[in-house]
């Protein structure tokens, strides 16, 4: 009996360490013990070989220096946010703080891109202060619109660079300190504390129903002065939450800063943000209502930049674009 129990323990010990072994994490003694066991245990060896075949044959690219949070963790985020623990929880939080792509993927899946600090789950080791990714790494520039919960008059707009999600909050607070108060659940909490700040517990954001992803971009052309051209329209379904916008870059260098302003003609306070000139045409400019559906209406986008240092005319360049978001079912009987 005692021999059988010891054998069971060895099986358990070996099976529970297959993953660590594939990650090269066994020390010399463990590796020796594992090898000895696999040499004598057909069952465990068969399982090891089956697993190894799966790992070798799954077609995944070898992880590069920019390895991201595994897709399976992002996909299970409601569970992950509650269950991740120890060093893994800290590593996910540190990665989120500097990886704009992973933050954006979470947002696109309908989740707030942050991981709350839950004392019972936290790693006791030393977390690192990780600076947020610089704007140039941003896959998207997000324009976040935050409608007021009751009046819905679009006076609470956040507008900022997605490169540092928290900077959307910081930018808004700096530019319009009176516009935002403490967030309440259910209002589309797009303004969040910085992941790099001292961690404070964060209420989980209510995930919007279904999945929201960026729709095909709406390409806008600047209207000539006095031209009464028909405004470009985009019909949006009731659940549309994000809209990519593409406009012509100004006649400035790609990395030249451009002030972009967006407002809704039906009312609201416009806010401004600075993006690189090349971002205007990159498809990375995304209009969002912070997890809430976009409101129909007429929107005005203004871009202003320059003059470039070597410009012949020392005047700033400007461009204005207008477009209409229509709710599905209001196309006039078509």
């Amino acid at each position, binding site marked *: 009996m005692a021999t059988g129990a010891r054998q069971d323990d060895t*099986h*358990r010990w*070996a*099976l*529970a360490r*297959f*993953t*660590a072994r*594939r*990650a*090269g*994490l*066994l*020390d*010399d003694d463990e590796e020796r013990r594992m090898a000895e066991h696999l040499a004598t245990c057909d069952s465990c060896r068969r399982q090891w070989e089956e697993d190894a075949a799966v*790992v070798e044959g*799954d077609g*995944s690219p*070898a*992880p*590069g*220096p920019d*390895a991201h*949070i*595994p*897709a*399976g963790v*992002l*996909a*299970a985020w409601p*569970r992950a946010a*509650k*269950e991740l*623990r*120890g*060093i*893994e*929880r*800290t*590593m*996910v939080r540190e*990665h989120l703080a500097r990886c704009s792509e992973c933050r954006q*993927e979470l947002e*696109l899946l309908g989740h707030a891109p942050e991981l709350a600090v839950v004392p019972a789950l*936290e*790693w*006791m*080791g030393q977390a*690192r202060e*990780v600076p947020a990714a610089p704007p140039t790494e941003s*896959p998207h520039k997000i324009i976040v619109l935050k409608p007021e919960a009751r009046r819905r008059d679009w006076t609470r707009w956040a507008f900022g660079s997605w490169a540092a999600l928290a900077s959307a909050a910081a930018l808004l607070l700096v530019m319009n300190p009176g516009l935002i108060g403490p967030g309440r659940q259910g209002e589309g909490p797009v303004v969040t504390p910085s992941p790099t700040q001292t961690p404070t517990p964060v209420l989980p954001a209510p995930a919007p129903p279904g*999945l929201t*992803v*960026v*729709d*095909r971009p709406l390409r806008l052309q600047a209207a000539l002065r006095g031209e009464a051209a028909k405004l470009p329209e985009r019909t949006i*379904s009731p659940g549309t939450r994000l809209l990519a916008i593409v406009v012509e870059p100004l006649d400035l260098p790609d990395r030249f800063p451009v002030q972009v302003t967006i407002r809704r003609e039906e009312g609201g306070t416009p806010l401004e943000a600075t993006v690189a000139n090349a971002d205007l045409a*990159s*498809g*990375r400019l995304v209009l969002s209502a912070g997890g809430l559906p976009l409101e129909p209406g007429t929107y005005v986008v203004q871009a202003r930049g320059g003059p470039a240092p070597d410009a012949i005319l020392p005047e700033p360049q400007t461009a204005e674009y207008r477009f209409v978001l229509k709710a599905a079912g209001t196309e006039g009987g078509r």
Partner: protein
Amino acid sequence: MSTPAPPGAKQEADVHWDEARAFLKRVVRKHFGRPDETQIDELTQEALVLLLRAVRREGARNLEGLMTVIGRRVVIDYIRNRQRWARIVQPMADDGPEPSDPSAGTPETFGDPDQRTRFVVLEYFQARSPKCHELALAFFGEEDWRRVATRLGQAYSAIRQQWSRCVKTLREAARSGTGLMLEWA
């Protein structure tokens, strides 16, 4: 590590993502074979992230083909991952083709345990030890330690010792907390 998209390949902004999601869900549902909407939704989310990353990395010349491959892949991986998780949390349970759901008693068992472990290793070393990070990348890239030693102009034994020290550091760090992924510590 993105590669230039081939001519004609669809880029991120060219993809109608709502339609892509609906397509992926159909593929996942077809291959999953069980009316578990929660799991189908989760697998669809995973497929969507993988699609987004693939399109960002190298574009998509045949978007429907790519979505079909990814949707099928996430279902197959889900089944295989259940078996891997079962070995971690129920190592002595019956190892039949359909082990009991490991997440039933251990909700932390989502995703791919190997990918999660790799992520922790790389992330830990990236911010704390560039040398260990370089060795971890070489290991996960299946580069032989002897080749690594040659490439870095060091002795094989020195590289092995360095990696042992890296692992020891990570193990000590992992011990100061809980976590299913690193119970080996």
